[in-house]
């Protein structure tokens, strides 16, 4: 029982990461009809906003400490962060410590701007081009973004730790009446889960309760008609692209403490997020979220020893197997609409 609860927790957490990425991807599919292979790269850039902010806050001046030697036997260079010397020890170090949450705030305008720039500068010219062209250009863009990050940060992962207050884990087991250590869960993952819940509900509320959102939803259903009403749907779609980028970006920022970001993390997520979006059903936001959580939970269960001992290697293929089964039984995924991306 405790093992099952544990995997449900894991699944919800993985699922929230999948759902966040898939949500942005679906917004772009649904509103703009663009197959965006660069979406993973946007997620990656979000994570690197956290890394960059951490670096900026830790910018240091160097003093030499003759009492210690460096690897060449010269006096050791000791780095002193500017923020610490400006704001004092506690506040300065606190800033560095809280760099990931701060990065969320910073990342929203950054990612919005990046999204706008991408849409206005590149994507908008591809609305009426074949999907093949969209794939080629966004894939090219993804490579370029990756390589730029690699040029600055190298290929190896770079840690961006959570604030100390959120390190360590919580013992759910004791709380639920199991023995200690039966169900432990890291604080930051709980934060991630809550956070993605907030972002997802935020996006849904935005689309449901604002006029802007209503127009966009109408545009997703029937772009021509909305255009005929004299509403400038294009500008709204630009904003939607920005929002999709921001959602992926903050997802990346929040993910940074869970796994140290590296330049190819976007590509690692890309295939999976496409699977999630399609299993959810093209153009369906609730479908994307549902599929994200479903696949997250299924994946977690497949990695349980009890299940792996019955079907060895099942965790290698479970996601794809489930995707195939769902697509064969439900032609348009879980909640897809007819006619979207079927040609």
């Amino acid at each position, binding site marked *: 029982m405790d093992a099952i609860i544990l995997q449900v927790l894991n699944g919800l957490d993985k699922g929230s990461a999948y759902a966040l990425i898939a949500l942005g991807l679906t917004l772009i*599919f*649904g*509103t*703009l*009809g*663009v*197959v965006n292979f660069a979406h993973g790269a946007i997620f990656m850039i979000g994570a690197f906003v956290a890394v960059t902010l951490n670096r900026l806050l830790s910018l240091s001046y160097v003093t030499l400490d003759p009492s210690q030697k460096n690897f060449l036997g010269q006096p050791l260079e000791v780095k002193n962060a500017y923020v610490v010397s400006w704001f004092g020890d506690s506040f300065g170090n606190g800033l560095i410590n809280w760099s990931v949450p701060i990065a969320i705030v910073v990342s929203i305008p950054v990612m919005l701007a990046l999204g706008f720039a991408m849409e206005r500068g*590149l994507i908008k*010219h591809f*609305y*009426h*081009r*074949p*999907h*093949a*062209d969209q*794939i*080629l*250009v966004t*894939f*090219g*863009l*993804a*490579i*370029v973004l*990756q*390589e*730029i990050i690699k*040029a600055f940060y190298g290929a190896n992962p770079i840690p961006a730790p959570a604030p100390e207050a959120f390190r360590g884990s919580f013992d759910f087991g004791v709380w639920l009446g199991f023995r200690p250590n039966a169900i432990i869960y890291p604080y930051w993952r709980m934060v991630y889960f809550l956070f993605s819940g907030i972002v997802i509900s935020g996006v849904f509320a935005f689309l449901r309760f604002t006029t802007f959102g209503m127009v966009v939803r109408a*545009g*997703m259903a029937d*772009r*021509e008609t909305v255009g005929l009403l004299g509403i400038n749907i294009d500008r709204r779609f630009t904003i939607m692209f920005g929002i999709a980028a921001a959602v992926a970006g903050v997802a990346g920022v929040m993910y940074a403490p869970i796994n140290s970001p590296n330049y190819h993390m976007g590509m690692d997520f890309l*295939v999976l997020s*496409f*699977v999630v979006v*399609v*299993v959810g059903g*093209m153009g369906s936001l609730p479908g994307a979220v549902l599929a994200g959580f479903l696949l997250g939970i299924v994946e977690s269960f497949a990695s349980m020893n009890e299940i792996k001992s019955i079907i*060895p*290697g099942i965790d*290698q*293929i479970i*996601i*794809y*197997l489930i*995707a*195939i089964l769902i*697509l*064969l039984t439900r*032609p*348009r*995924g879980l909640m897809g609409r007819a006619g*979207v*991306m*079927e*040609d």
Partner: protein
Amino acid sequence: MMKINLNDKILMLIVTVVVLLAPFILQPFAEGTALAQFNAGYPDLLQRIVIFGIFAIGFNILFGLTGYLSFGHAAFLGVGSYSAVWMFKLLSMNVIPGILLAIVTSGLFALLIGWISLRRSGIYFSILTLAFAQMSYNLAYSVLTQFTNGETGLQIRLSDPRVLDGAATNGTLPSTNILPPSLVNGFEMRDTYQLHLGNWLFQFNTGYYVTAVILILAFYLSLRIFRSPFGLMLRAVKTNQTRLNYTGINTRPYTLAAFVISGMYAGLAGGLLAAMDPLAGAERMQWTVGGEVVLMTILGGAGTLIGPVLGAGFIKYFENIFSKINDTVLHHWFSFLPDGLQNFAVDLIHPFVGKGWQLTLGLIFMAVVIFLPGGLVEGSQKLAGLFRRRTKKTGGGPDEQHHPKTTPHVAE
């Protein structure tokens, strides 16, 4: 015998001549000169360009004609390679049984995957094929390792039975051949003749010419399919499947046939890769390889005859030539400049070559799709048409490639 029209005959002739003379054409610079870095006329790269050309030609029969975008063709490439290497291990180092088995097994595998995946269309189809390929990759890498030898890849060993060849006695691994060396020498895949002409060095490799002949045949076959009623039906599938159904055509067998044919082309390419270099790794089945052939086809021009081969050549050239340009080479090129300028020039180019070759490739993808919409072939035709129109003030040339017009985008 040639039941094709004059334009196609000319195209066939050009392809044949270019492919057969490629060891000259891709080796334009003299040895030892700074530009020799850009020579691509060495056996391995020539073979690779041709083999991936075959892969892309086959992929184009599915994607270019029917519009069904498969992300899973790497699976057939991998199955082809594994089949061929198993033939080398069990039967003989002669490549013909290996290649034949590669075509057969990949065809059967494509039949299975196509039969299931073609129940859906559009992106749903793409994701189904992707899922199958990724499953195959993961299984080959970690689960079915007694068949695939996992991470390390399936290789030939001294201890393999090779029932037709007899056991190797001298402790060296045999090499793949088209005619057994016991009968006639010089037909091992790795055999290379060299020709020094002044400062130029040209290499003629048996393996390359085997693949080249197969490429020419594969291209001819694809041309015939393009010009056949079958090809017409496939193009009709791409433009309006509903109408086709109401015209009394059952589209499923047509798309399935196209899927299986393209799968067999992929298997052939996989078999040839193994024939040139008897090692089959699971990586060959990864989605990135399937994605690469998609990019090759789109880059060259999906639905055009020659585009996929150009795209394959383009990408393989970049991967192999640009990744090898390092700073030492750059300094050598710019050694005529004064030191400061030299360093500046090297620093300027440095991010785009060597370890930055992928950046250049990404930029080229974007540039091609922006400035040459429809890929290299169609894009350059349009440019040429534009140029002609400007000079002659008449309409553009006839659309020789029957390239379909752009499809409306999804939100419509």
